[in-house]
Structure formats: structure tokens, C-alpha cells
């Protein structure tokens, strides 16, 4: 019996969330006293690196049909590989791809699943997994009672850890089925870490007053190597694209650092960001509710403070 990790790849490369999933899989295998195996579908150039993060064996099904994602074809292949490799627990990322797969796999494997796990499982009173619920306002602890189990892992819930060495890739003979969903076009912003995967996020709200003022937000983000985000009113007014909207009805994120500029911190916004490790709030209103959820706060005008903060970051980078 093994812990099987489905390692996601995109544009021929294994993603960051796959290294998180393998780290989680390796630790789960240790808890259960078994081994961890990783599987990749389609082109995955750097798959051997999965061994570095703790996969004892790495498998690939190289059928070119897997280079485009289709949830039916992927779920069938993952379920078959899981059974072939003697899987007991399946780990995958709670990503756009993972969210299309977990439900299907639970039916195919007749397995109980926890979607969006926020921490490691425990095994003293059954196999229990925590997850964040009510958009980050609480955690729920679930016990999976079926023999086969599925856990999908929230982005940034665990830090990838290097524990092993690059492994050989073993071949899995699985064929992709003809996809019913045909991908016409994929557009991604290159060179920027996607928001759900970002460790550092600079976010701004209505306090920026006008979309033409976004330069300082982007400059601060560029200086820190951070990804930009925004509050709901900003996305709703069309100042920024919808995929940058973090909050209860937008994207829920858990970066290590979240810097909020001119965001008051409505409860719906907090719901999307309160799992961040460290929150910095810069707002001219000392009564802004966001300060109560912050680790560090500055009461001041963003147009005055942010340019100075950019200079401070530059100075810091020059001396480190």
C-alpha cells in the first residue's frame, strides 16, 4: 500500500503545487509507515525533481493526449495508476485542475475525500484531515472512513522540503481517452507567480482612488517579487481583472506576506486573506477594521508611504 501523489504539470513542467503535494505525500507516508510514489501525465520535463521532495518512485504516462487537460481522461488515468501502484491515499493539489478531478476520483475509487486540506493528517483516532472552512473563518476536522482516501491540498498549506535526490522516471503505459472538452485557447500572464501560488502578495483597494494610480502597487510588488491583488470594489469597477480579486467571493489565498494598501478590511475581504502568515496594513484611516487582523500597521496616506516603502525595500535589497 502506497501514498500516491498526482503531480500536476503545465506547459510541460511540474508545478510548484506538485512539490507541495509530494512533500505532503512523503510526510503522510511516514505517518502510515509506507512509501510515497508520484505520477505525472503528459510532458513533465522536470519530473525527476519530485524525488528531491520525497517521492520514492516517480512515474510518467507520456501519451501526448495528456498534454491538454480533460477531467474525464485525467481522472480515468489517475484512478488506474493509483490501483496499479497499490495506492491507499491519493494526494493532489486543490488547484483549478485538482478541483475538476477530486470529485470524479472519489467516485471512481469509492474513496472519501477532503478537498482543500490546510494541514497534515493525524492517524491516532482514524485518518483525520483539517481544512479551512467558512472562507478561512474556521477549520473543520474530517475523518475519512473508507479504505481508499483522497486529500487535495490547499496552495501554500505546506512548504516544499527537499529530503531526497532526483529519481529516475518509470514509465506508465496509460492512454489518454479522446477528450470531450476541447481547449481552444490558453492565456496566462507569464513571468508572474499566479496569485493562488504566490508567497508574497501586494494588494490594493479603493484607497488608491483611480486605476491610473496602480503604478505604485506594481512597483512595490516588482521590488519585492510579489504578485498583485485587489479588493472586490476595485475588480467590480473594472480597475483590475477579476482574477486578481481576493476575498470571500474572489480568490482565497494564504501567502506568507500580504500587504494591503488602502483596503479597509471588510469581513468578506478578510475571509479571503486571513490565512496569510503575516499581514501588513497601510491605510490612512486609523479606524479601518483591517488593522485588527494585521501583524504590522502604518496609519498614513498610501501615496506618501508606499513610495517611501519602495525606497526602503531597495535599500534593504542593496545591503543583503
Amino acid at each position, binding site marked *: 500500500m502506497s501514498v500516491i501523489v498526482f503531480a500536476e504539470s503545465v506547459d510541460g513542467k511540474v508545478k510548484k503545487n506538485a512539490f507541495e503535494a509530494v512533500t505532503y505525500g512523503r510526510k503522510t507516508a511516514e505517518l502510515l509507515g509506507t512509501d510515497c510514489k508520484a505520477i505525472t501525465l503528459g510532458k513533465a520535463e522536470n519530473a525527476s525533481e519530485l524525488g528531491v521532495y520525497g517521492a520514492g518512485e516517480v512515474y510518467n504516462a507520456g501519451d501526448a493526449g495528456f498534454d491538454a487537460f480533460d*477531467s474525464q481522461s485525467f481522472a480515468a488515468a489517475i484512478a488506474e495508476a493509483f490501483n496499479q501502484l497499490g495506492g491507499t491515499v491519493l494526494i493532489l493539489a486543490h488547484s483549478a485542475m485538482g*478541483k475538476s478531478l477530486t470529485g470524479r476520483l472519489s467516485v*471512481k475509487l469509492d474513496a472519501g475525500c477532503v478537498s482543500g486540506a490546510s494541514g497534515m493528517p493525524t492517524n491516532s483516532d482514524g485518518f483525520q484531515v483539517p481544512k479551512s472552512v467558512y472562507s478561512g473563518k*474556521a477549520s473543520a476536522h474530517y475523518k475519512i472512513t473508507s479504505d481508499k482516501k483522497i486529500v487535495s491540498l490547499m496552495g501554500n498549506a505546506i512548504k516544499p522540503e527537499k529530503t531526497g535526490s532526483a529519481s529516475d522516471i518509470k514509465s506508465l503505459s496509460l492512454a489518454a481517452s479522446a477528450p470531450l*472538452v476541447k481547449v481552444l485557447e490558453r492565456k496566462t500572464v507569464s513571468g*508572474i*507567480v*499566479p496569485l493562488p501560488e504566490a508567497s508574497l502578495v501586494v494588494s490594493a483597494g479603493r484607497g488608491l482612488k483611480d486605476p491610473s494610480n496602480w503604478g505604485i502597487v506594481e512597483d512595490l510588488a516588482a521590488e519585492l517579487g510579489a504578485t498583485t491583488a485587489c479588493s472586490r470594489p476595485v475588480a467590480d469597477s473594472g480597475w483590475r481583472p477579476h482574477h486578481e*480579486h481576493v476575498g470571500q467571493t474572489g480568490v482565497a489565498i494564504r501567502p506568507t*506576506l500580504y500587504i494591503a494598501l488602502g483596503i479597509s478590511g471588510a469581513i468578506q475581504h478578510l475571509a479571503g486573506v486571513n490565512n496569510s502568515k503575516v499581514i501588513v496594513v497601510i491605510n490612512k484611516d486609523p479606524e479601518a477594521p483591517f488593522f485588527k487582523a494585521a501583524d504590522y500597521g502604518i496609519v498614513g496616506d498610501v501615496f506618501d508611504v508606499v513610495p517611501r516603502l519602495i525606497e526602503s525595500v531597495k535599500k534593504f535589497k542593496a545591503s543583503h
Partner: protein
Amino acid sequence: MKILVCISKTPDTTAKIAFKNDGKDFQADGIQFIMNPYDEWYALVRGLELTEAQGGTVTVINVGTADNDTVIRKGLAIGAADAIRINKDPEGAWDVAHQLAAQVKGQGYDLILLGKETIDYNDSEVGATLAELLDLPYISYGNKLEVSGTTATVSREIEGGTETMEVQLPVVISCAKGMAEQRIPNMKGIMTAKSKPLTVVEPAAVTSHVTLVTHTLPPAKKSVHMIAPEDTDELVRLLHEEAKVI
């Protein structure tokens, strides 16, 4: 076009979250419940827009007890033609998907729409599970949907971008922001909703593989460390030396 929209009841987005019975149950006293925003604003409204433009009907379906009728009637007030309620307080996403599948199988829906997730349990699981049980294609996080004949063109959010795809009906699609705009029911809608059919059906036998043990609330945050607006160097120092995040 025959469209089914799966709706769910959730606490209001501003609700204070607390639990009772050793953390097992949600403290519902004094909480206002609403239709899950993703189901209402995006799935339901887009379904209605499509039938208004091309003909057809929208049916809303919910798994829940009679307490849910207010939320279901709201769906009818916004414009759904009829409603089905599967009479069970569901145990979770697996249960909901299996109840829906048992009811929907063979009913000839062209399009099954639902929100990308519920704002209470955030599982994002029902759509894919339902699609698998019905052996249908599934697209998650759709933010644009057009239907022409029996072909649906859907854009969806992926990490850091969007993807556009094409699929033949029938299909299950989970809906996210961008799909449509919220609609406020008008007086006529509210009045006619009362007389629209709401069929109550009994649930199928379903065994879940997951049990909820308890809920916990996050530890209280230590109080905020305020820094003078002139002292951004100090903020950077703290982020590096104390918080160790840069």
C-alpha cells in the same frame, strides 16, 4: 434548452461563525441564511439569460429540509420556472452530489450549472462528483458561457490566466465571477414565485465516507504592531528579522 441550476443555502457572508456541541454543529441561532452567492449571481442568472435569449426553462434543485424553501422561492422569484427539493439535511458534498445524480439521471437536462463552491465548506466538489456520476464532461470555474446549438463555449479561470474551451451538451459547469451579474428579484417575480411548482422528493440511500469530527476557530491574532508612517525602513527590518518573510 433545459437547464438545471443546483443551489445551496449558506450563512450570509457577514455572519459571525461559531459552533456548538463541542464544535460539531454550526451555531445557527440568529444567523441569516442566503442562497450561496456563486449559485445565485452566476449559475442561476446565466442560466436565465440563456433561456431568455434562446428559449427553454430553468429548474432549480436543492438538497435540504423545508427550512430551505425561502431560499428556493428566491430562486423562483429571480426567474426559475420550477423547483425540486430533495428532502434531506445533506451530510456533505458526496451526499449532495449523489442525491442530485439520483434525481437528475435520465431527465434530459442540456446544461447543469452550479456555483464554483459554497461559501461555507468551500469544497468545490459537487460539480465534478455529479459529472462523474452522470458520466458527463465537466468544466470548473467558468467565467463566460455561450451556447450555440448543442455546442457550449466556456472560458474558465486557471492559475494566472484563462482558458477557453468548447464542449458538446450536455455538460456540467461550475460558475465563477464574470459569468453574469447579480439580479434583484422584482415585485412581480416575488408574487409569481409563490405559485410556481416546488416539488419535494424523498432522498436516495447514500453512505458517506467522511465524517465531520469537529470545528475549531483560528487562534486570536496578537495585537497589531504599529509603525510610524515615516519609518518604512523599520517595517522592512521587522519583516526580515522578526517575521522572516522577506
